[in-house]
């Protein structure tokens, strides 16, 4: 019975299908370029309109009467005020957003993206955000440009609507403040409860004090992904991040000269799997109960400014604390400066933890200088290292006598675990070859060496690659090791 019904169901729609017509009249159709898109069902056209930026969706209302009201059922709204003459079009933009919000059918919103300047319109913009929250928006991304004008007029920092902070439907919230001159204080209301929020991203905000930051972090019971990007912490002494479901934490410090941060982050993460950090360690990061961590990235930079401010020892101690907190990770990516930073306080080297789970170490951001003596000491602490990756190349400082140089001491993992070495942006200089030769001589069970050459650094082309390859084959201690060039 079931088959018969289905078979009929499949057959039944045959006659109304534009495809069946197409089979007959294909030639004719191609020549005349007839309007076949308008024959698609409403549900599909509405889905296509939802994929567009809202202005393009609304514009389709003038295509023909068939399209006139289709856009009104869209569930994603995207408003981006941009372009060089956005000030001139300000009134049009404001009217457009308001008209769309009024005319759209009252169905729930899935996504609301708003990027615009605040100017004197804080209350209107807040009304839009409130409207999105009232329509049970799930994904909300707000980027507000705040200039001196908008602040002079209100005297007060921008206050987002209270209903936003108690939304039950929000699963994703991204909040960015744009201001070229200074940072904007994020005002946090007294009651916060995001019962469904899984992802929270805050960029370029100044957190007002310890208590409000703590209030925000206690109001996100199911948060899984937290990004704090270029936020300012100069009003905050200490922050405790302890969301029980948190899986991913990313903290990027401000990059400009505003070096007044000095905040202590206490990170408790029973379920934390990924930790990303970028900055100059202007703040201190301490980890507790983070044995679930799988992968960490530490992008420590700003050497010049650290040296200028004479913060070397502070940075050294902070790197040390950070690494202690990450000692159970499986994969670690760091800038070479992390290793150099450690060397500022030599007394700490002896107390480095053993990374007993670490199988993959990757150097990112800048070329690794093998002349720095600390690398040997670090690798010593990685008994299970299986894969070693140099993402931005390697070099040996010229003052380091190439003939004499070697990695000292050679770590045990070179004879027990290290199976794969990858070097990207290889330049093929004498110093680099010396290092690679040494690695091949020391890694007893190496299975694979992958070298990808940098086009602007590596001279000699494919012919020379072959030559280098053959040369390297001679210095392998592991006879089964494959050397691949790409």
């Amino acid at each position, binding site marked *: 019975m*079931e*088959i018969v019904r*289905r*078979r009929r169901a*499949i*057959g039944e*729609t*045959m006659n109304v*299908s*534009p*495809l*069946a017509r*197409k*089979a007959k009249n294909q030639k004719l*159709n*191609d020549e*005349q*370029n*007839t*309007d*076949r*898109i*308008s*024959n*698609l*069902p409403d549900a*599909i056209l509405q*889905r*296509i309109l939802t*994929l*567009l*930026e*809202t*202005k*393009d969706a*609304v*514009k*389709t*209302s*003038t*295509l*023909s*009467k068939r*399209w006139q009201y289709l856009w009104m059922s869209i569930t994603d709204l995207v408003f981006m005020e941009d*372009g060089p003459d956005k000030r001139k*079009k300000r009134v*049009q*933009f404001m*009217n*457009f957003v308001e*008209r769309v919000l009024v005319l759209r059918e009252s169905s729930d919103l899935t996504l609301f993206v708003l990027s615009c300047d605040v100017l004197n319109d804080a209350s209107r913009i807040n009304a839009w955000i409130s409207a999105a929250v009232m329509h049970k928006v799930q994904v909300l991304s707000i980027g507000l440009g705040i200039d001196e004008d908008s602040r002079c007029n209100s005297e007060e920092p921008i206050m987002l609507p209270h209903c936003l902070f108690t939304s039950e439907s929000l699963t994703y919230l991204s909040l960015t403040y744009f201001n070229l001159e200074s940072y904007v204080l994020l005002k946090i209301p007294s009651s916060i409860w995001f019962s469904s929020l899984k992802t929270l991203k805050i960029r370029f905000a100044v957190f007002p004090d310890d208590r409000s930051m703590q209030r925000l972090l206690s109001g996100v019971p199911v948060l899984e992904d937290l990004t704090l990007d270029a936020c300012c912490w100069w009003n905050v002494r200490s922050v405790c991040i302890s969301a029980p479901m948190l899986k991913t934490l990313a903290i990027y410090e401000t990059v400009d000269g505003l070096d007044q941060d000095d905040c202590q982050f206490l990170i408790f993460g029973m379920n934390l799997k990924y930790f990303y950090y970028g900055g100059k360690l202007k703040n201190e990061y301490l980890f507790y109960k983070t044995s679930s961590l799988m992968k960490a990235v530490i992008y420590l930079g700003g050497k010049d400014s650290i040296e200028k401010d004479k913060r070397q020892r502070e940075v050294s101690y902070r790197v040390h604390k950070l690494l202690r907190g990450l000692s159970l990770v499986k994969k670690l990516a760091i800038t070479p400066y992390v290793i150099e930073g450690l060397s500022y306080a030599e007394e700490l080297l002896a107390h480095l933890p053993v990374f007993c789970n670490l199988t993959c170490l990757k150097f990112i951001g800048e070329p690794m200088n093998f002349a720095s003596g600390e690398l040997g000491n670090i690798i010593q602490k990685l008994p299970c290292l299986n894969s070693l990756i140099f993402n931005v190349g390697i070099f040996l400082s010229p003052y380091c006598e190439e003939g004499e140089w070697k990695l000292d001491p050679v770590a045990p993992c070179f004879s027990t675990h290290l199976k794969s070495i990858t070097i990207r942006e290889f330049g093929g200089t004498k110093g680099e070859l010396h290092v690679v030769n040494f690695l091949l001589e020391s890694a007893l069970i190496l299975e694979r060496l992958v070298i990808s050459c940098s086009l602007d650094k590596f001279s000699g082309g494919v012919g020379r690659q072959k030559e280098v390859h053959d040369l390297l084959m001679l210095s392998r201690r592991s006879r089964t090791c494959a050397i691949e060039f790409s």
Partner: protein
Amino acid sequence: MSNTSENPNPSSSSAKITLKTSDNELFEVEEAVAMKFCTVKQYFEDEKDNDVAARGSSTVIPLPNVHSAVLARLISYCKKLPQSNAVADNHEEEETKKKERKQYGTPGDLVDLISAANYLDFKEGLEFFNQALADHIQNKSVEYVRKFFGIKGDFEPHEEEKYREEYAWAFEGVDED
């Protein structure tokens, strides 16, 4: 116009399902590919339940709404799925995906692919082709979209003018055609 994109290698061990298109072409498709089409999957499972086709591969599933040229393209898209399905998380990847979508060129082709994907209840494909079609509307002028898809404007000039005034902001700053 033929089933060139299907796997010509009959010695492949995976199970095959035969699909019959509106123009009576037969396509022998790997089961894994065919099962991406929920309409086919449902039909196939019903057949199994009713134990009509214990011989499995000999079942022919008729798809009277899908032309062979369209089915061939859908199948070739399916085979590429694993790579193109990764979430684009940076600008470069998004550009690559955009280029990939551009290959499904003419408006008529896209409408056929969307209709067929919709009929076959092939969700990933539908989303992909919808996006490919949306690419031809995003940031384009109304005139361009009308011309590209052959849509005839049927508003009185004053009606259209009214829209353009009311939504003035939306009509500015479009890409060159």
